[in-house]
């Protein structure tokens, strides 16, 4: 049971990093970026392609992260330039289109043949209380918590954080104050894109089958973000870890094992019902 939980933590860490990024980006720009994992996957696969061409891993990782940052920044620019004002629905549609474009691009560029995916972290594992814990799991876990902590500090304690949040609340007011919101938005997109690439590089050696399956790691991450109501970074991070652990442990429980894939969706449904518990259900929206 415990080793099931531990084995799920590495996926959980990736969900947590993605969920934190989704929440942060939503708070800053008001966009739910459903293509975030795909953007990260694009960077991770670029890194693997470069490693495959014989370059050292360190340089490849930097290029991979830069690719994700660029692509995310481009997505942020498109949204800020042409879809700054429209409704949340429109922005969600644009972000879905972005997901589809990146999925197609990734499939065209990288296909589905297997790749050598080197691990960023030395392949060491410790045995704690009879359970095998890989160093990669610990590093991923630490990254998830650091990123959640860092973003909390940035958003609540710094001037730029306040400006960023003001941007999602009252973009026009902020523009009238002479702040260049477009640059801020692009920077926020780009930063979350780079973090997503890092998350993907960390989990790739254990969860690497294809570009497509990597891109859909966003589903459990969205479930986690929803648990935090797209506003609380810490609940989102813990939610991500919990979903990973539940998936890992669920495999060892007979009655649950066949339904593990549905866990994120069940969480999404339950969270939606809970968050909307005080609303009139048949009201038109």
């Amino acid at each position, binding site marked *: 049971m415990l080793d099931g939980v531990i084995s*799920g933590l590495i*996926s959980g860490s990736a969900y947590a990093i993605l969920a934190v990024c989704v929440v942060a980006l939503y708070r800053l720009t008001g966009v739910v970026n459903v293509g975030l994992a795909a953007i990260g996957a694009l960077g991770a696969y670029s890194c693997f392609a470069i490693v495959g061409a014989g370059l050292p891993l360190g340089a490849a990782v930097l290029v991979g992260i830069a690719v994700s940052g660029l692509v995310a920044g481009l997505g942020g620019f498109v949204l800020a330039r042409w879809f700054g004002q429209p409704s949340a629905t429109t922005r969600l549609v644009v972000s879905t289109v972005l997901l589809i474009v990146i999925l197609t691009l990734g499939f065209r560029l990288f296909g589905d043949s*297997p790749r050598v995916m080197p691990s960023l972290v030395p392949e060491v594992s410790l045995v704690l209380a009879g359970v095998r814990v890989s160093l990669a799991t610990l590093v991923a876990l630490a990254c998830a918590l650091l990123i959640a902590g860092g973003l909390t500090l940035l958003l609540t304690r710094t001037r730029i954080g306040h400006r960023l949040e003001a941007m999602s609340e009252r973009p026009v007011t902020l523009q009238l104050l002479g702040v260049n919101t477009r640059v801020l938005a692009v920077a926020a997109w780009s930063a979350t894109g780079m973090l997503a690439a890092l998350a993907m590089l960390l989990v790739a050696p*254990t969860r*690497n089958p294809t570009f497509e399956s990597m891109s859909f790691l966003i589903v459990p991450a969205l479930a986690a973000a929803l648990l935090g109501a797209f506003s609380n970074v810490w609940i989102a991070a813990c939610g991500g870890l919990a979903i990973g652990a539940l*998936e890992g442990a669920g*495999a060892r429980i007979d009655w649950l*094992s066949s339904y593990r894939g549905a866990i994120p969706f069940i969480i999404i449904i339950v969270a939606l019902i809970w968050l909307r518990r005080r609303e009139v259900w048949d009201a038109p929206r």
Partner: protein
Amino acid sequence: MKSPRSRALTALSLSALAAVLLAGCTATGTNEGGDAAGAEPIRVGAISSITGPAPFAEVPGAAQAVFDRVNAEGGIQGRMIEYVSEDDGADPAQASQAARRLIDETGVVAMVGSASLVECSANAAYYEQRGVVSIMGTGVEPTCFESRNIAPVNNGTIQGYASLLYFASEDLGRERVCPVILNSAGLTEPYLALIEEWQSETGSTPPLVDTTVNLGDDATPVLLAVRDAGCDAVVFNANEAVAVAFMNTAKQQGLLEGIDYLTLTSAYSEAVVTALEAQGTLGLYANSEFVPFMGDDSALDEWRETLTAADVPLTSLSEGGYVAAEILVEVLRGIEGDITAESVAEAIRGAGEVANPLLGMPFIFDDSDAHNPNRASLMVQATKDGWVTASDWVIVP
């Protein structure tokens, strides 16, 4: 508000135009100028997933190479073979339209060298109704192996999996063979039925039959179960990428030593062995449904020569297309008189055993309601010298 809408309309009409243009390009590979003798060409067809999630272009490509060679040698009864290969885009509707086009309009006398994810279930009934036979290069769905008018030359995943189980228990002599089935829609039940058959045939009792993880998901839970059950061989289904990921997970759990890993023929590729070596997980076995294409068997010489000349990739898949076309050519050569769909079907059902140097057992397309003529596999193992042949032909009873 007007301009985005009109822009969207422009985009829509442009993409519609592109779709129409692309649709016009789907019928490829027709052999032009094959009218040397003035006689009407013999038309044969194929429907393959050339675009889509798993492209199989080299299978009809290899068949085309065979027909080009035969045409260059003078054709059949002085008539050229015209090969019309269509793409179904892994879409059953397109597959079914293509079949109607090929049979009713083009007038093909047989289907050969098809390789599709969806074609069998879409067209099996239609082939039977129209009396057209199909010698597939690569059958994927279970329906391909359960139809009266379809006979693939490959083993297929189910028979391939069976050969791995028999190899593990009978040839490697493993006593704790654990079948692992990574779930994919519609395939889990046939696998389970086959495992039961293998148990009663060999008297093996697997300590674990695992079906908890979906194909493409993290395989760690499976490998923890493998460890707890004390398996000494793990037979799992996978595509290229999943096979590599599965082995990596086994390594991370420290489960490479003392356990043999066996998987389906999809893993038998250059890319997989390179990735396995890079991550330090060599030793994986896979089945080869034909004479292993990376080997140096002289039976491969002609295949290699024909395909290299036609610029078709040398893979396990292209062996299938090649073998299917060779078998059809042999059958066509044996026909005296008119070559029609009817006479081809009659000839192939009457031909009995058709041997081919690339097959481990003779190909039979008899009068029965289901055909899985190739149940023979050679095992190959991933080593630092690439894939090397590790067994004799394993024939599933």
